[in-house]
């Protein structure tokens, strides 16, 4: 159990809204008021009761006593003390439960965008707070909590009676709470220590000095904090037993609080902005065995299978996208298929999740206009989402997960009397919600007036001596009527007509044609077909009037708005969603035989003309002449490649494609961050690069700091989720960087600002790593568990792996001095440099690079974009190669990665080198550099069947990539591409036509505003070479 709130907290809570001490009500201060003792016993009679999804009690009764449901059923006995309320014709539902209620940020928190934000001062800074202000798991959401009356009212208007309040800022945001949505009273809080710890991937912009300033860093901080919590617990236990053997570990109330959450198996509720963020949370939950909940995002339908496997409870927003702007054909060009499709599918997200058996509750939280919640829910239902499931997702399901099933979620004896009363079936558009009951008290909702002014009326009005008999013709909308007064020959329009909820009615007319120069005003009430009231002439004479409705409004347009029935989207999900995604995963034939090709083996066999390539189960079986396959084989593909060239798949040793986040630049050493945490397998550049023959890429952290983050080597398996594109068994690596980018002055004054300092940063980091490593081994030996264990440090762990030569360094570098510097540092500490990246002055110091067996991964011919590359020359690669360095050409660009084959041609041009040797620069050499040459890089028996079929010599500018295969599976095919592009265009047309003809009103969501993904015209092109570091 979580301990009671600390005294400070109670103090804060109490001054904020209510006096609670251990749930007890303080005695009423007699100086303030006298005791309120109105009885709270009701009999709700004759309603259609839906006690829980799927059940109906026709003409049923409910007895409510002191906040609880005493009984529910037909023809209940009328308790003598119960006040009866006739609900015949009404429907009664369990009150809805809002599972993600976020306190509206106060105005002062809204800072203009782009301003340099200083780290927020901690609200309650004490010595025991966590070092990072974004880590506040010890915070309670009801601290400093003020409830905006408007917010609760908005929710009540939708039928919500209970809410799960969730803290919404920071990374570890604090503990949730459960409250009722009535007026604040001592019992409004159901649980101040709610069921969840809220977590978000929150980070500053790249110019923000506070760690983390990237998604990479946010994930790393989450992981480190969980490890810290585990260590904190262990450390305190040891210290408690052996205080004489240990220095006292510091107090950290954040870690202490987190431990309690972990021990109690409380939920960890991750806020997600897109479906891959959900999978990312799943990885963290798996690592720390968390009870995972997700705040969803509306994109779940894209990865239902993977999301189901998370076995997580999902709190789902009903945020449907706006109609994309397709009004003109030029504007429509700016809209991607991904957006068009999302517009079509999003309203079916809940239904698709339900069909998959994923548990979820619906929330209003992402809706700017909360009123669209019901509108959207009804749309989903109209499109096929079952009413019972819809109802469950706002009642029994949230009750179950929030631990409220005993007291809320259904209408049963003994439960809290939270209900919703409507004037018909909730799922009927015409129905309105009339009231909610919260803790046995009724809250009438502002609703449309009962009275309807429309129709033809005979009105008699008199003033002074005069009595007039005229008629009124009132039309228009119920709440916005318009009309005219017909007085003999004259027809006078009614002005400022009002009709209020308590059936007060008023209007005015210009009296000139009735010899009343000026404005005549009428007001009164309408009861059914009779109205009466008073008025005033322009001359200040009192008017008395009454009217009788003689005919209803014939043009009652009530139903005109009824649109054609919406149907569920028929679109099948593509992997990834949008143009060029796949509906079916590509399959691997058992046998592939490519015949009669010129085969560039890139192995000892060299280039073989008129040869065959045989692939079995994804591996290369043989390269030779006249190969054939047994007719027994079940699935085989034979390709006649006469006149074509076949090469190994191209490998890019420096890429920033397929990642959501590249630089954690807030600190000079961030070895703890990992590209694998932020892979974006949906990046369209994967597909484009496949079309250029690329099969493997080394996704690197950026060059913002001396010791950057951990890399991820991927295969371009288009359509698979992030886990599916990782290159299995590739050696670990990390990005380092030297020179201008890392020493560039930061506004916040980050060390270093010279190449001298860069060296010291690296030496200092490894010195710390050596000490950490020694500590680890000595503690491991240590004294029968009497010593506090070493705190696991993800940053130092990575550095120790480098020291142990288990992690390759890939170092961004340009000038010969800094290259030689790192060679010496590596020799001193005994670590292995996999590659120098860029290494544009490598030709000046090739002997030192060769001496330590490092590779050089360079550009073919880029130069002069910054000062440190004034001496970059296109002879660099060949010169280094001749001096004994393994050289590759990389892209560092989503664009260049599509044509590395002709980059290799530049080695042949400037080398000069043989064509076969030049092509090593983009195949076997990068494979060697990444330590994956046992699997890829050449076409040799036993290696992965990653190969490309080219229309001609791959070094020729006139050749194109026709097919790209990875693991014996075809991921790109020029012919198939031309079919797909046709489909893409047809689909665009159909969806655009559908949007243009759709009467559906705009919803308010704007997914770009929500910062989900790149917009259609955004180029997310990171490159290390840029003058501006982003």
């Amino acid at each position, binding site marked *: 159990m979580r301990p009671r709130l600390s005294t400070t907290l109670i103090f804060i809570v109490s001054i904020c809204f209510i006096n609670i001490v251990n749930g007890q009500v303080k005695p009423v201060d007699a100086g303030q008021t006298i005791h309120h003792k109105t009885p709270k016993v009701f009999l709700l009679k004759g309603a259609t009761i839906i006690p829980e999804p799927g059940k109906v009690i026709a003409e049923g009764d409910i007895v409510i006593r002191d906040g609880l449901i005493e009984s529910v059923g037909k023809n209940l006995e009328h308790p003598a003390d119960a006040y009866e309320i006739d609900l015949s014709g009404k429907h009664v539902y369990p009150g809805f439960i809002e599972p993600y209620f976020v306190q509206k940020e106060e105005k002062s928190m809204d800072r203009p965008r782009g301003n340099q934000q200083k780290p927020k001062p901690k609200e309650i800074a004490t010595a025991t707070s966590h070092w990072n202000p974004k880590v506040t798991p010890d915070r309670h959401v009801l601290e400093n909590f003020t409830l905006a009356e408007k917010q609760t009212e908005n929710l009540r208007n939708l039928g919500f009676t209970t809410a799960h309040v969730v803290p919404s800022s920071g990374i570890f945001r604090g503990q949730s709470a459960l409250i009722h949505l009535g007026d604040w009273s001592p019992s409004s809080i159901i649980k101040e220590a709610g069921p969840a710890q809220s977590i978000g991937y929150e980070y500053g912009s790249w110019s923000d000095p506070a760690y983390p300033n990237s998604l990479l860093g946010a994930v790393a901080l989450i992981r480190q904090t969980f490890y810290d919590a585990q260590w904190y617990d262990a450390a305190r236990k040891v210290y408690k037993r052996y205080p004489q053997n240990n220095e006292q570990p510091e107090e950290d109330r954040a870690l202490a609080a987190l431990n309690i959450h972990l021990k109690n198996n409380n939920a960890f509720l991750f806020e997600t902005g897109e479906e891959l963020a959900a999978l990312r949370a799943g990885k963290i939950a798996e690592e720390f065995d968390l009870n995972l909940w997700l705040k969803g995002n509306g994109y779940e339908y894209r990865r239902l299978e993977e999301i189901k496997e998370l076995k997580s409870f999902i709190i789902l927003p009903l945020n449907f996208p706006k109609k994309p702007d397709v009004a003109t054909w030029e504007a429509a060009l700016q809209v991607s298929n991904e957006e068009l499709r999302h517009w079509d599918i999003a309203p079916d997200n809940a239904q698709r999740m339900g069909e998959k058996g994923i548990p979820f509750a619906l929330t209003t939280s992402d809706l700017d206009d909360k009123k669209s919640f019901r509108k959207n829910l009804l749309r989903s239902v109209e499109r096929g989402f079952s009413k019972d499931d819809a109802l469950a997702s706002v009642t029994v399901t949230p009750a179950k997960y929030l631990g409220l099933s005993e007291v809320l979620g259904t209408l049963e004896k003994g439960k809290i009397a939270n209900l919703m009363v409507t004037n018909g079936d909730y799922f009927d558009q015409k129905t309105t919600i009339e009231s909610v009951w919260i803790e046995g008290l009724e809250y009438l909702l502002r609703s449309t007036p009962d009275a309807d002014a429309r129709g033809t009326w005979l009105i008699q009005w008199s003033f002074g001596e005069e009595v007039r008999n005229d008629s009124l013709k009132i039309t228009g909308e119920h709440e916005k009527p318009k009309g005219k007064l017909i007085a003999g020959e004259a027809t006078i329009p009614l002005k400022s007509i009002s009709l209020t909820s308590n059936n007060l009615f008023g209007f005015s007319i210009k009296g000139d044609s009735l010899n009343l120069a000026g404005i005549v005003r009428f007001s009164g009430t309408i009861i059914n077909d009779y109205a009466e009231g008073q008025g005033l002439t322009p001359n200040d004479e009192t008017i008395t009037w009454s009217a009788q409705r003689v005919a209803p409004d014939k043009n009652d347009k009530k139903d005109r708005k009824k649109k054609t029935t919406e149907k569920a989207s028929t679109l099948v999900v593509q992997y990834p969603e949008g143009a060029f995604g796949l509906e079916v995963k590509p399959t691997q034939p058992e046998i592939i035989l490519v015949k009669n090709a010129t085969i560039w083996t890139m192995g000892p066999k060299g280039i073989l003309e008129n040869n065959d390539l045989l692939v079995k189960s994804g591996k290369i079986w043989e390269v030779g002449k006249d190969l054939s396959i047994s007719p027994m084989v079940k699935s085989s593909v034979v390709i006649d490649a006469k006149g074509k060239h076949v090469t190994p798949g191209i490998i890019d040793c420096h890429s920033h494609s397929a990642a959501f986040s590249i630089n954690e630049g807030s600190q000079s050493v961030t070895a703890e961050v990992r590209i694998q945490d932020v892979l974006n397998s949906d990046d369209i550049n994967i597909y484009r690069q496949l079309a250029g023959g690329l099969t493997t890429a080394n996704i690197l952290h950026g060059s913002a700091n001396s010791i950057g983050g951990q890399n991820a080597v991927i295969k371009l398996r288009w359509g698979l989720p992030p886990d599916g594109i990782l290159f299995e068994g590739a050696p670990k690596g990390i990005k380092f960087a030297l020179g201008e980018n890392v020493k560039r002055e930061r506004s916040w004054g980050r060390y270093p600002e010279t190449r001298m300092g860069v060296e010291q940063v690296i030496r200092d980091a490894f010195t710390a790593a050596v000490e950490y490593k020694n500590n680890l081994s000595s503690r491991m030996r240590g004294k029968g568990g009497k010593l506090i264990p070493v705190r696991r440090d993800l940053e130092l762990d990575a550095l120790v792996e480098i020291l142990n030569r288990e992690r390759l360094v890939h170092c961004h570098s340009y000038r010969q001095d800094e290259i030689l510097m790192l060679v010496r540092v590596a020799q001193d500490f005994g670590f292995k440099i996999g590659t120098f990246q860029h290494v544009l002055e490598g030709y000046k110091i090739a002997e030192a690079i060769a001496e330590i067996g490092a590779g050089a991964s360079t550009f073919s011919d*880029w130069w002069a*974009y910054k000062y440190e590359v004034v001496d970059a020359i296109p002879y660099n690669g060949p010169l280094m190669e001749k001096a004994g360095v393994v050289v590759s050409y990389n892209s560092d660009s989503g*664009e260049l990665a599509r044509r590395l084959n002709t980059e290799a041609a530049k080695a042949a041009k400037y080398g000069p080198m043989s064509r076969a040797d030049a092509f090593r620069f983009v195949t076997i050499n990068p494979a060697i550099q990444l330590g994956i040459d046992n699997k890829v890089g050449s076409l040799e028996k036993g290696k992965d069947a990653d190969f490309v079929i080219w229309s001609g010599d791959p070094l020729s*500018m006139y050749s194109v990539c026709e097919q790209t295969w990875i693991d014996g599976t075809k991921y790109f095919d020029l012919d198939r591409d031309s079919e797909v592009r046709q489909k893409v265009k047809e689909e665009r047309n159909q969806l655009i036509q559908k949007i243009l003809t759709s009467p559906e009103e705009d919803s308010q969501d704007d997914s770009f505003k929500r910062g989900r993904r790149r917009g259609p015209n955004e*180029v997310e*092109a990171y490159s290390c070479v840029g003058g501006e570091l982003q």
Partner: protein
Amino acid sequence: MRNYVNIILIIVINYSFASDQVPAPEQKHPILLTNCTIHPVSSEEIRGGSILFEKGIITGVARRMVNWPENTEIIDLKGKHVYPGMIAAASVIGLTEIGAVAVTRDFSERGEVNPNVRAEVAYNPDSEIIPVTRSNGITLAHSCPTGGIISGTSAIMMLDGWTWEKATLKAPAGLHINWPNMGAVRYRRYRVSEEDAAKRREETLKKLDSAFDEARRYLLAKQADTGSGIIQHNKDLRWEAMVPVLKKEVPVFMHAGEIRQIISAVEWANRQNVKIVIVGGYDAWRVADLLKKYEIPVIYEGVNSLPRRRWEDFDTPFTAPLKMYEAGLKYCISMGTGGASNHRNTPYEASKAASYGLPKEEALKSVTLYPAEILGIADRVGSLEKGKDATLIITDGDPLEITTQVEQIYIQGKTIDMSDHHKGLYAKYKEKYLQLGKTE
């Protein structure tokens, strides 16, 4: 501290920026290149042909040359190929040295309306980038100002010469205008709402129109000035510079890529009655009929660029020239004004388009004859024809193939120094590894 660093930087840069290549002297005697394959571009290739040039001008192109002056230098080019020099159709060559070093950037003047600034006067003939670019067969560069709304006038520069005046082939080539973005731009975290974007766009267009209105008022008043002294108007450098544009003597180079930019720029040009050339032209092929109707050519930038829209075919930029060619548009291919250092790869933009369907001869024209036509210099360069400048290159094969070597260049008949900064460093460090015994 910062200033101090900058000063040092300036000194270092100035010191290292004078290139070692010596500009060539004027052609002293006639030269006959013979026994080679001549690719005039404007006509069929001539195998085993000869080309004669004198005083910088081509005096003959033939299968068999029978007459040549006595003092002619005859060069036997057995197996080699002769092509017209290639043209960087839009660039900032000479106007910048190191992209990331602000003090070396001279292409973007402060302010939004700068029709009077002239590119040629800021062209640094000793830029290291010039010989490096030239070594791969690029003999001419269109050097363009790029800043603000009206950027200034550009010039066609020959990539050789002691001074910018000697290097200038044509100036002004035209006036450069950046058409504003027509929709909300979403770039990384930089986001502008539709409303703000519309506001900004309207403001820009207003400034543009008012500049042209003022320039017309200026021209009108000036024309009314008969010299009698009755009507006198002071000289306004800005509007004076726009007179050739208003008289349609030179075009406006309209930098516009996205379809709505192009459509509105065409409408504007018709309204303003000026000649325009679309530069950038990402979506030009989508409005080919419109551009054809008004005879507006396109300098297409970035064959080797990513599709700008997620849903577009992967080869959209590769195939754009083909689509313009098929539609009968006047176009050429360029690497653009984004940076100066990579223009040596201009031919490979053309062959990339060829690999995705553009006929090879078209690809070659797209970096020789077509840019010459669009830039208004086809009477001098762009093809090998009698009477044109002897600005040509000698290669061992198709210059659009990377593996081909450019062996010699002539610019207006001058024999160009083929060395450059890169070759110099290459020679120096080859020597290092010889000394170390690493290579032979």
